[in-house]
């Protein structure tokens, strides 16, 4: 990088500032192109007028947001009352993503703990094994899941075969199927940060707790969990956020009744039926919601930290 020459300014702080600018530049360029620009595009599109066969007309309009929040009757000429349809979809998304996150945590934490407590030479192998299924395309994995879970699928066959069930369990097209799909889609994002945290954990602390008469359960709750909390939080965010906007699992496993916000957005940009400004507006609202949820979470963490 052509940053070294400090022209004029002889003080080292000037050189430092200048090279810092150049060194940070690539990061800013990447962030600008891949994060800021798309978000700005979405923001602008959400305030434009829709073109009926997809695309936009460059005219300022609040119609997208109005459509999202306001119910103006069948002919669209009544005063605004709250439109519940999309808020319900939103609420369902939060709920589904939350359930998938808890499911991932319940399975991911013990898995991560298991890996982190293997002999050091074996750990990379276990991590590798965890990630292998994720080399397969997400779509294919989700479709396969549908085959596994359906009424005549291997899971139900097996459960009936061993006599646990008389008739197949209906899993596909339920909320639970979507949660399972989301859980499976993002499990490694839960396992890996928790694994990293548990691996750094000083197990002498667990011994100290046991030495001071704490049972295993108390040791987990009072010593291990607080120590690996940053990893757990990272894992939860990494599963929750993409689950919120996911559309593959709800589309394929949830059916029409279990629509999530991701599917709603997807539809607005698909084919001729779409409504780009509305899709953009829904995206912006999703983004804002996720940020608000994370902020509330961070606030509470900071507060809990202060009290402790």
């Amino acid at each position, binding site marked *: 990088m052509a940053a070294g020459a400090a022209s004029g300014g002889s003080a080292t702080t000037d050189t430092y500032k200048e090279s810092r600018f150049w060194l940070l530049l690539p990061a800013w360029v990447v962030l600008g192109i891949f994060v800021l620009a798309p978000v700005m595009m979405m923001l602008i599109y959400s305030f434009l007028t829709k073109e009926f066969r997809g695309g936009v007309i460059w005219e300022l309009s609040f119609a997208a947001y109005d459509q999202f929040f306001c119910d103006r009757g069948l002919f669209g000429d009544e005063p605004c009352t709250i439109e519940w349809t999309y808020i319900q979809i939103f609420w369902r998304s939060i709920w589904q993503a939350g359930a998938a996150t808890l499911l991932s945590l319940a399975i991911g934490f013990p898995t991560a703990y298991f890996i982190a407590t293997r002999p050091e030479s074996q750990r990379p192998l276990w991590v590798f094994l965890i990630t292998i299924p994720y080399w397969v395309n997400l779509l294919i994995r989700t479709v396969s899941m549908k085959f596994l879970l359906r009424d005549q699928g291997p899971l139900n066959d097996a459960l009936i075969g061993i006599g646990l069930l008389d008739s197949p369990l209906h899993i596909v097209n339920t909320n639970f199927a979507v949660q399972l799909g989301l859980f499976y889609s993002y499990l490694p994002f839960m396992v890996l940060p928790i694994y990293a945290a548990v691996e750094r954990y*000083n197990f*002498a*602390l667990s*011994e*100290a*707790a*046991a*030495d*001071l*008469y*704490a*049972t295993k359960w*108390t040791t987990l709750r*009072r*010593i291990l969990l*607080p*120590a690996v909390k940053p990893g757990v939080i990272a894992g939860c965010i990494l599963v929750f956020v993409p689950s919120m906007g996911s559309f593959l699992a709800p589309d394929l496993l949830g059916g029409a009744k279990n629509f999530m916000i991701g599917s709603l957005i997807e539809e607005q940009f698909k084919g001729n039926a779409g409504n780009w400004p509305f899709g953009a507006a829904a995206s912006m609202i999703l983004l804002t919601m996720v940020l608000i949820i994370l902020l509330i979470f961070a606030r509470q963490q900071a507060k809990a930290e202060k009290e*402790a």
Partner: protein
Amino acid sequence: MSNTTSNAIEVRDAVKRYGDFTALKRISLSIKDNEFFTLLGPSGCGKTTLLRMIAGFEDVTEGAIFLYGDEIENLPPHQRPVNTVFQNYALFPHMTILDNVAFGLEMRGKSKDQARSRAGEMLELVQLSQFAARKPSQLSGGQQQRVALARALAPQPKVLLLDEPLSALDLKLRKAMQLELKHLQRETGITFIFVTHDQEEALTMSDRIAVMSAGEMQQLGGPKDIYEKPRNMFVADFIGETNLLEVSVDGINNGRAVCHLGGGHELTCDAVDGVGVGSHVHMSVRPERLYMSDKPVETESLKGRIKENIFVGTDITTIVDLEDGPEFVVRTSNSDRGNKRIFEPGAEMYVNMELGAARLLVD
């Protein structure tokens, strides 16, 4: 069951194996009530393994451990009324100092308030009351060490286990803590089992010391016994500095062994069980038990020549060559210079020792 209640800890035929590797080879020892007992040895000798077996962190492959007569080797750590001071303290980083000390009390069923008030008293005992609200990372190593001590003592364990607790401290602090620990042990009357690789530390603090090497106990005794009457090569070499000489035992009369040093030099010393006439063994003579003169003084005088004098602050170390024989290291304390002679390099002189200074070793 035999009567074991008078002992704080009794280890009976304890063996620890990890796969093919035997870390402890059938150790038996009894630690008395109120005793400051030290397990001393180089790293890998099994001393920490033995301590962790008493604490419950390692299971016992064979054998039994009794705590005041109760067999404990199958109890999980949280059910054993012993507490440990860990090598790197293992303080809970997310808790305050006060909560760290209160933790064990709370786990024993005390209410949070009771536990905290008792923890406060413990912090007073180690003079850290003003740090009660801080986190461990805000304390110095020495302070953390004292917190670890207060935390382990707070639930009033029957036995306190200390796993090289001073090894991370600098020399001055370590010396101060050695005395503090010794006083604390006397004040509380709790049996201390202390693990260290530092022989000086062991000699300073202990009532009794078990010297360990390669999973075996080499010698068990008071500091003075261990230092002055080492049983074998390992103990003599590991504890303090010594002259280790190869000798052959020429004869034994009235409990005195006549030993040949090579080059025609001879020494008599106390005979030892297990060393008979004709055996080739080692002899240990502590450098500070030797002194020099221009004429033979004692019955045990050896003729030699000064090779080198080394000034080491409190002492002068002199290296002496015996004629056709081995080398000797003689240490003269600087405070003794009035009474004891120092010779110039090259001078001929005699190295003298009183009876009992030389010790035969079972190899």
